[in-house]
């Protein structure tokens, strides 16, 4: 199949080179980790293959898939009511809740996992709090349940962020006609609203599922053996690079299959509004007597996902300070974290624009191929991507090796899909008629994109950038491996202290990390349009 036949599709023209070239470039860059894995995988000895071809691998596959499923499902179940309550009801303090409920995304999983263990373990803080009530021991949370709980509470905001907009824009007329046809609130939701949310839910679910696939922190602390666990076990000890490569390739295959499921479910829906002007302002439902249960739910989720973890960190910090432990000044780390994260956010979101335009305006085989490939970096454990870049840069691109540019490059590979998703979603909202109107008024296609599409897609692009900002803030393996010599960030100093059990010293950078990451998210969510009260 040649390139031309990939590009050409029936209903759309060919993308201009200024869109096509960067989009293909992104696709090629995303193939770097994969090609490294293939190079290393080819070195695999027969015994390595034997190890892999044992039935045990199938069990691990099953466990990995099961965890992806449970975490995704739990995240959706958490996110849908939260999105609805914060955007479509008269929930008191809905702005505050909107901000709080997306914050768990800023907690690194290696911290989050540890915090959940210390809070919810059989003799953890929760048990200590309950011991006056005669609770002697809590049931163990390790295994699937613990891993699901931890990962869901840390990653549900991926779903929440993608569906908030969709929930807010649900056409009230459709809900009302369903009610008029005799369906109850719940049936209306399942039969009418949920199908409309499907594209947003699957897009967010994809991120959660792939994040689950890539995460090590939570599964290791919760003792749940997935493929990622196998990979890290190799890095921890014998460093069989070909085994690492083969297992990572399996992770990549799972990732691509998951993306295919998403693309299949997305189908051929039309997203942009076709009516004139703007849609009717959705009404906010009066919660009435349901206000208190709703507030209880919000409080519960917020407690479990952000308030308790932050409080434990605070407790460690206070305990350490009162024990006279010296706290180092971390201004430098803070500045490093903010600057690389900002660069990563800007670069990734700008780079997401050409591919998003191609996917939305010039759909075809090539566009969906590149889109699929672009998810691989996100699904692979960070360490695998980082080591693959070491291989290429140290040997073939020495001048950028151990510079900030390679690090930013790694962040782009790791986090591209989060920016792409947001940019694509906002482009889908923009009718192609707007660009056509601009062109008929004398603007070239490029100028039309610049003066019409990009300003309108702006909020979505900025939102994508902010997600990249805060997951870069907490990123660890690539930062440690690819950062220039002596480079440290808040995340690396949290790790440095926590891995040696210096909890008070870990708590300060962890709290600063959470606080700093929260700012852009809080500003964005608080400024969202449609919060007309």
């Amino acid at each position, binding site marked *: 199949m040649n390139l031309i036949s990939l590009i050409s599709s029936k209903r759309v023209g060919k993308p201009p080179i200024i869109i096509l070239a960067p989009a293909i470039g992104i696709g090629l860059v995303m193939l770097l980790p994969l090609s490294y894995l293939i190079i290393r995988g080819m070195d695999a000895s027969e015994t390595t293959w034997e190890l892999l071809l044992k039935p045990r691998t199938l069990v691990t596959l099953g466990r990995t898939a099961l965890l992806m499923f449970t975490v995704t499902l739990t995240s959706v179940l958490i996110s849908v009511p939260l999105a609805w309550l914060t955007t479509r009801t008269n929930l008191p303090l809905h702005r505050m809740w909107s901000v709080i409920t997306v914050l768990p995304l800023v907690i690194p999983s290696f911290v989050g996992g540890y915090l959940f263990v210390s809070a919810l373990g059989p003799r953890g803080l929760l048990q200590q709090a309950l011991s006056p009530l005669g609770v002697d021991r809590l049931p163990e949370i390790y295994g699937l349940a613990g891993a699901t709980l931890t990962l869901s509470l840390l990653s549900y905001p991926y779903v929440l962020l993608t569906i908030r907009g969709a929930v807010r824009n649900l056409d009230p007329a459709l809900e009302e006609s369903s009610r008029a046809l005799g369906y109850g609130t719940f049936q209306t939701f399942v039969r009418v609203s949920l199908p409309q949310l499907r594209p947003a839910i699957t897009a967010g679910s994809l991120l959660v599922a792939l994040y689950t696939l890539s995460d090590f922190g939570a599964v290791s602390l919760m003792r749940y053996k997935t493929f990622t666990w196998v990979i890290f076990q190799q890095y921890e000890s014998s460093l069989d690079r070909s085994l690492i490569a083969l297992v990572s390739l399996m992770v990549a295959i799972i990732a691509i299959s998951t993306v295919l499921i998403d693309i299949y479910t997305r189908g051929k829906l039309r997203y942009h509004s076709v009516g004139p002007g703007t849609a009717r302002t959705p009404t906010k439902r009066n919660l009435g007597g349901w206000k208190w249960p709703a507030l209880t739910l919000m409080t519960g989720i917020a407690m479990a996902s952000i308030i308790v973890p932050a409080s434990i960190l605070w407790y460690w910090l206070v305990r350490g300070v009162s024990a006279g432990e010296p706290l180092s000044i971390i201004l430098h780390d803070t500045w490093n974290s903010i600057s690389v994260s900002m660069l990563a956010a800007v670069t990734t979101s700008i780079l997401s624009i050409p591919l998003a335009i191609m996917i939305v305006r010039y759909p075809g085989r090539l566009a969906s191929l590149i889109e699929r490939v672009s998810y691989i970096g996100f699904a692979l454990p960070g360490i695998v991507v980082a080591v693959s870049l070491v291989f290429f840069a140290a040997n073939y691109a020495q001048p950028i090796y151990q510079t900030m540019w390679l690090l930013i490059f790694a962040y782009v590979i790791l986090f591209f899909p989060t920016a792409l998703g947001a940019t694509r979603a906002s482009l889908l909202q923009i009718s192609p008629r707007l660009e056509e*109107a601009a062109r008929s008024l004398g603007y070239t296609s490029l100028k039309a994109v610049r003066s019409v599409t990009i300003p309108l897609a702006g909020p979505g692009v900025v939102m994508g950038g902010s997600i990249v900002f805060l997951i870069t803030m907490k990123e660890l393996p690539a930062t440690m491996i690819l950062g220039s010599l002596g480079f440290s960030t808040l995340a690396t100093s949290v790790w440095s202290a926590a891995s040696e059990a210096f909890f008070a010293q870990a708590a300060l950078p962890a709290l600063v990390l959470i606080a700093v990451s929260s700012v852009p998210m809080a500003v964005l969510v608080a400024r969202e349009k449609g919060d007309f009260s």
Partner: protein
Amino acid sequence: MSKAAVKCGELTKSYGGKLAVDAVSFSVLQGEILSIVGPSSGGKTTTIRMLAGFEQPDSGEISLQDTLVSSSSIFIPPERRNVGIVFQEYALFPNKTVAENVAFGLHRLQQNEQHTRLSDVMEMVQISDVSNSYPHEISGGQQQRVALARSLAPQPDVLLLDEPFSNLDTGLRVEIRNEVRSILRETKTTTVFVTHDQEEAMFMGDILAVMSEGRIEQIGGPAELYHTPSTRFVASFLGNTDFLSGIVVDTTVRTELGKIPAPKESQPGPIDLVLRPQDLVVGEGPGEGTVEASEFRGPTYLHHIRLVSGDKVRVETPAYLRCEIGDKVKVGIGPHYQAVGFPSQ
């Protein structure tokens, strides 16, 4: 007044093997309004999108103001065609005010010229009072005016209107289309107007083209098409047309509603006559039928009558002529009827 502002020759476009526009040719003179009417997915929108340059024809040529803009070897992009377009959904820039929307196409003018032109256009379409509002803050009718103003502001050689009134309420629709028509007249703007509403098409167009399944069935003056449709499709599409079977013998047609002069150049044998509700009378005449339904329309009634032969006709009568359903009535052809018909199939 005789220069062709728009000229299309044998325009053809297909999507995925399915012909959307099939060898369409027409020309529009300077300052004229061409209405293209037809059922949805008949190829109307594709035709004007090709005129605008949003779609590239598979074959055929387009000339605007005697300049070839599209052929097998030439494709001028939309921004260099000086063509204005108003979309069904208006496509106003939601992040720009009314004035910014209208001024959007004036980027090539000097600052002071921009100002003058902007206020002229805004005044002409009567939106000066909402110039600082955003599109979502104004009514549908006003949004329509803004879209028109925006497309007229750069003084396009040709204006394309794609179902521009279909999102308006009936009352507003009539008002706005009157206004638009007089503005286009006043500015002598060459216009191609697409609609699925035959009444609107006949009202707006100096010339009218009926399109179906990618082909132009007939093109000409609206009255000409209405009174002398050249195809069965055109006849049935324009007006509440019923077909009455008859037989041509020499220069007359025999029908169950009596004998009438045959259409010119008609062949002897079975014929289906084109009858509009205004062509028939109730209460007198040789024919007989049963009233099946009566639509009250204020000044008139529209009676649905099944004739003895089983043919169904609709007859418009003054409102005082009431019939009950089931009434047996006499039916005849009015004295001014000019027979038009097609050989029976």
